[in-house]
C-alpha cells in the first residue's frame, strides 16, 4: 500500500510539474474515460472497446464481449487580441486591440463500439467501432467592415470557422499469437471527412489595375472583403495496427501504427464579396467607366454584395502516426502507463480549394473578364507544420471493486512551431500540457465513467511582418493568443 501511494504521488507530481502539452493540430485527444483519464497512455493496457483507437491488439485480451460508448464534451476557451493592421498601423475592420473570444460552443463528440469473441482463426476478437480520430471545431467573429468602407454591410457571424471532422468506421480484428504474451491487432477503416471552412479574405481591389485615379481604390477601399464559405464531405480509407507484448505479470509493452489515406473533400461553396459603398464617388466621377451603371467601376463602389456559388474540391491530408507504450502494474490496484506518439504533421499542408461550376454572378461581375476572374479565383490556405511528438503518463487506481480513480498528464509538442502562418482557424499556440482526472464505477456488468480534462496552451504573440498587407497574407492573423481547452468525457461499457 505504501508503494502504491508513493507511486500515485510520484505520477501526480510529474504530471503537475511537467511543462508542455495534449492533442496537437486537429487530432482528437482520444476516446473512452479509462484511456482519457490516463491522459491517453493506454496502448499497453488497452483491453476494452476503445482499444480500436489506441491499440487494436488490446482486443485479444478482452475477456468479455463488450458494448460501449462515450460522449466527449469539448469547450475551446480561446482568446485573441487581434493586431490585424496593414503595415502594422492601418485599420482593417478586424476588432483590433480588444479581447475576442471564440464563439461559445460546447462540442459533443460521440463514439461507440462493440467487441465480440468469435471462434474464427483460432479465437479471434472482432470489433466494430465508430469514432473521430481527427476533429476541430472553432468559430470566431472578428470582423466588421469599416464604416467608411461599407456602413451597411452585414457579414455573417460565423466568419472564421473551421469545423473539421474525420469519422472512422473501423472493423478490428485481434488475436493472441503467443498465449498470454503477444497479440496482434489490425483495424481497417472507412473514413468519412466533413469540412465546413469559412474565412474572411481581404483581396486587392482590382480597380487599382483598371484606373489611374487612386481615389477609387484608396484606403479603406484598397481591399475588397470576401466571405468564403465551403461545406463538403468525402470518403477515404485508413489502416491501424498494433501489437501488445506482456513481458511479465507486471510489464506490458506496445507499439502502434496509424495510416489514414488522403481524403478528397468536395461540396458547395459560396463567396460573398462586400463592395465598398461610396455612391458620391462613382456618381460624380469624371470617367464614364466608373460613373455609368453596369461598369466595373460602379460595381466596386456600389455597396452591393456580389455572390458567387460554386462546387469545390480539396484534399485533406490527414497525418499518419506511430506510437509506443508501456504499462507497469505496481500492485494489484495501481497501474502506471507511459506512452509516446509521433505524428507526421508535415503531411498536412492546409487546403487548396479548386472551384468549378460557378453560378450566381450577374451584370458586370459576370460579363467583365477581369471581374469574373476576380470573383471566381481559386483559394489556398497553406499550412506549414512540422512533425510532432507527444508523451503521456497515466495511472489508474482501483479503490475497490466499485470505484477506479484515474489521473494523467500529457506533454504535446506543437506542429506549428513558427508563427508565420498562424490563424484563428487552427489555434495551436505551442507545446501543451494536459491534465486529466476522473473515475469509473463498476456496477455489475456496467462500467460508468466520467473524466475531466484541462489542456493548457502557452500564450502566443504573433507579430505582423513589415510586409503585412499583401493579398496572400490572409493566411496569417497577427495578434495575441491565449488558449485553453476543457473537456468532459462520459462513458459506459457493458460486458456480456
Amino acid at each position, binding site marked *: 500500500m505504501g508503494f502504491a501511494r508513493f507511486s500515485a504521488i510520484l505520477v501526480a507530481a510529474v504530471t503537475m510539474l511537467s511543462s508542455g502539452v495534449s492533442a496537437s493540430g486537429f487530432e482528437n485527444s482520444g476516446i473512452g474515460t479509462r484511456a482519457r483519464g490516463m491522459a491517453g497512455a493506454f496502448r499497453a493496457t488497452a483491453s476494452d472497446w476503445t482499444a480500436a483507437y489506441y491499440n487494436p491488439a488490446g482486443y485479444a485480451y478482452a475477456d468479455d464481449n463488450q458494448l460501449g460508448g462515450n460522449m466527449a464534451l469539448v469547450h475551446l476557451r480561446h482568446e485573441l487580441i487581434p493586431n490585424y493592421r496593414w503595415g502594422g498601423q492601418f485599420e482593417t475592420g478586424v476588432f483590433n486591440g480588444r479581447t475576442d473570444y471564440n464563439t*461559445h460552443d460546447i462540442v459533443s463528440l460521440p463514439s461507440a463500439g462493440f467487441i465480440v469473441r468469435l471462434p474464427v482463426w483460432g479465437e479471434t476478437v472482432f470489433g466494430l467501432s465508430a469514432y473521430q480520430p481527427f476533429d476541430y471545431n472553432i468559430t470566431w*467573429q472578428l470582423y466588421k467592415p469599416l464604416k*467608411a468602407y461599407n456602413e451597411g454591410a452585414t457579414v455573417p457571424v460565423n466568419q472564421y470557422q473551421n469545423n473539421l471532422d474525420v469519422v472512422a468506421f473501423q472493423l478490428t480484428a485481434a488475436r493472441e499469437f503467443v498465449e498470454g504474451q503477444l497479440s496482434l491487432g489490425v483495424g481497417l477503416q472507412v473514413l468519412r471527412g466533413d469540412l465546413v471552412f469559412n474565412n474572411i479574405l481581404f483581396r486587392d481591389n482590382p480597380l487599382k489595375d483598371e484606373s489611374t485615379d*487612386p481615389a477609387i481604390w484608396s484606403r479603406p477601399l484598397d481591399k475588397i472583403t470576401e466571405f468564403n464559405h465551403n461545406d463538403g464531405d468525402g470518403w477515404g480509407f485508413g489502416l491501424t495496427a498494433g501489437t501488445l507484448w506482456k513481458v511479465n505479470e507486471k510489464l506490458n509493452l506496445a507499439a502502434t501504427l496509424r495510416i489514414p489515406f488522403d481524403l478528397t473533400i468536395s461540396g458547395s461553396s459560396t463567396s460573398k464579396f462586400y463592395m465598398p459603398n461610396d455612391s458620391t464617388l462613382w456618381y460624380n466621377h469624371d470617367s464614364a467607366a466608373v460613373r455609368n451603371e453596369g461598369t466595373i467601376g460602379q460595381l466596386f463602389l456600389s455597396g452591393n454584395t456580389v455572390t458567387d456559388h460554386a462546387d469545390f474540391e480539396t484534399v485533406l491530408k490527414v497525418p499518419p502516426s506511430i506510437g509506443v507504450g508501456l504499462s507497469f502494474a505496481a500492485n494489484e490496484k495501481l497501474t502506471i502507463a507511459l506512452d509516446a506518439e509521433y505524428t507526421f504533421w508535415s503531411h498536412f499542408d492546409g487546403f487548396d480549394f479548386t472551384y468549378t461550376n460557378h453560378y450566381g454572378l450577374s451584370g458586370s461581375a459576370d460579363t467583365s473578364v477581369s471581374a469574373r476572374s476576380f470573383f471566381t479565383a481559386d483559394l489556398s490556405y497553406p499550412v506549414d507544420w512540422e512533425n510532432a511528438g507527444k508523451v503521456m503518463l497515466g495511472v489508474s487506481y482501483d*479503490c475497490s471493486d466499485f470505484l477506479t480513480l484515474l489521473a494523467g498528464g500529457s506533454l504535446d509538442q506543437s506542429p506549428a512551431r513558427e508563427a508565420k502562418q498562424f490563424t484563428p482557424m487552427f489555434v495551436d499556440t505551442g507545446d501543451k500540457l494536459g491534465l486529466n482526472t476522473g473515475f469509473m464505477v463498476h456496477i455489475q456488468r456496467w462500467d460508468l465513467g466520467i473524466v475531466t480534462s484541462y489542456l493548457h496552451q502557452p500564450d502566443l504573440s504573433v507579430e505582423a511582418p*513589415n510586409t503585412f498587407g*499583401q493579398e496572400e497574407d490572409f493566411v496569417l492573423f497577427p495578434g495575441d493568443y491565449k488558449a485553453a481547452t476543457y473537456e*468532459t468525457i462520459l462513458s459506459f461499457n457493458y460486458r456480456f
Partner: protein
Amino acid sequence: MLRYMNCLLFILALTLGLVVGCTDRGTNVTDEPVSNAGILTIGHDFYDELKLQIGRNVGGQRVLFQMRGYSPEEAIPPIQGGQPKLVPLLILLAPQDGDEWYFFNHGLKQLADELVTEGSIQPMEILCIPNDRVFGGYFYAGHSAPAGYYDYFIGGSLIDYLHDTYPFLTDSLPVGIGGAGMGSYGAFRAALMHKGVFTSISATDGPLDFDGPDGNSGLMELFDDALIEQGLLGGTTDPPDSTWQCDSLEVDPLEDTICVESTLVINYPPSWTENFDSAGVWHLSRLFIGGALAFSPHDTLVDTTGVIRIKFQGTDHEELQVVIPDSQRFVLSDSTTLITNIIKLNQFNFDFHLPFDSTGNPYWPIWSMWLNNNLEKMILNDPSPGSQLRGVKMWFGTSPEFEFANYRQQTLSWIDCLRHSALDQSQIQVKEYTGYPGNPATNNQYLYDIMRDMLIFHSKCFEQQ
C-alpha cells in the same frame, strides 16, 4: 469515512472544473450607437469673389459654390424644438481636382461619427471646400478674375457668411483650417492672409515651398516634366518642312520644261507656346495652368467694355454686370511664355504666362511672380516674420513615399522654414507615415487614416481655446 470524504472532494472538484469549463463568456461584438449626424449642403454664389472665374456662371447662370459640411448631432436643431448647440468650425480644402465630396469619399463622415461617439473629438462642424474642376484648382489663391478671389473668400467672406447663416456657428468659437495637397497650401495661405482667424492648421503633403529647400527645386524641378508630359521639351523638336518653289519655267531644246529660278520655302512648325495644351488631362500641366491663372494671369482679351447678363438660378430675374474693372486686370506685355490658346469660354478669355521656358528653365520675370506667392516669402515679407502664425497650432502629415509634384520635399522645407521663424516649436506637430507594401502612400491614398489624427489635433486645439 476518510475514503468517502476523499471521493466526495474528488467529485466536487470535478464538478467545479465542469462548471468553470462550460461557462459562456459572452459575445465580443458590441452594439454601436447610431449617429444622427448629417451632411449639410451649403450653396452660395459668393458672386463678388467668383463671378468671373473660368467656367463659372457659364451661360449667364449664377452658379452656386457648392460645399458640404459634416454636422454633428449637436448642431442639428432638436426635433422637439429649441436651439442647436454651438460648435467650432473646421474648414477642409480639397486637393487638386478634389470636389466638395473629396474628404467624404475618404470616409470623413464615418470617421467623425466614430471619433465623436468614442469621445476622441468634440462635436464640430466640418466644412469641405471644393477645388476648381476646370483646371484642377488655383491654389485657393489670387486676386485675379480667372482664378477667383479666394484671398478674400476663404478666410473672410466665407466665414462671415457661415456665422451669419448658421445658428450653431459663432465667431466666439475657434475656427480651424486644413487641407490636402493643394488644399494644404490654401490653408496656410488663408491663415497668413487672415491673421488671427484660424487657431489651428492641418496639412498633408502639398506645394508648400515652390522653390524647395535649396531655392532651386520644388516645383522648379517639374518644369521640364510638364513639358515632357506634352512632348514639348526643348521647344519644337519637329524639323521644319522645306521645299523648293519654282519661280520661273523654261522649255529647253529637247522641249523639256525646266525650272530656271526657284526659292527655298521653309515651313516652321508652331512654337511650343502654341502647342501647349490646356485641355489635356496631364496633372503637372494642369497644376501649372491653375497656378499661372492665379499667380501670373493675362487677361488682355477680356471684353472690359461690355457687360454680361447674369440670370439668377431658378428665377427669371436678370442683372447686367460690368465684367472686369480696369483696376483689377492683369496685363503683362511680356509674351515669352504666354499661352494664348487656352480654352475659350463664351466671351471670357484668359491667357496665362507659364513660369518656365521651352527648355524647362525658370523664366524669372514670371517665376518671380510665383515666388511672391510662396508661403516662405509671404511669411518673411511680414515686418515681424512669423507673427501671422503666432499662437496658431500646426499639424503636418507627411510621407516619404509621397511622389506627386515634389510635395514631400516642399512640405519638409516649409516645416523647416516655420521652425526657423521665431515660432514656438511646440506649435508644430509632424506625423510621418508610410503605406504598406504593395500600396505605397504616393498620393493621398492614406488620407482616411491620417484624417483621424487631423481631426483629433483640431479638437484638442479647440479645447485649449
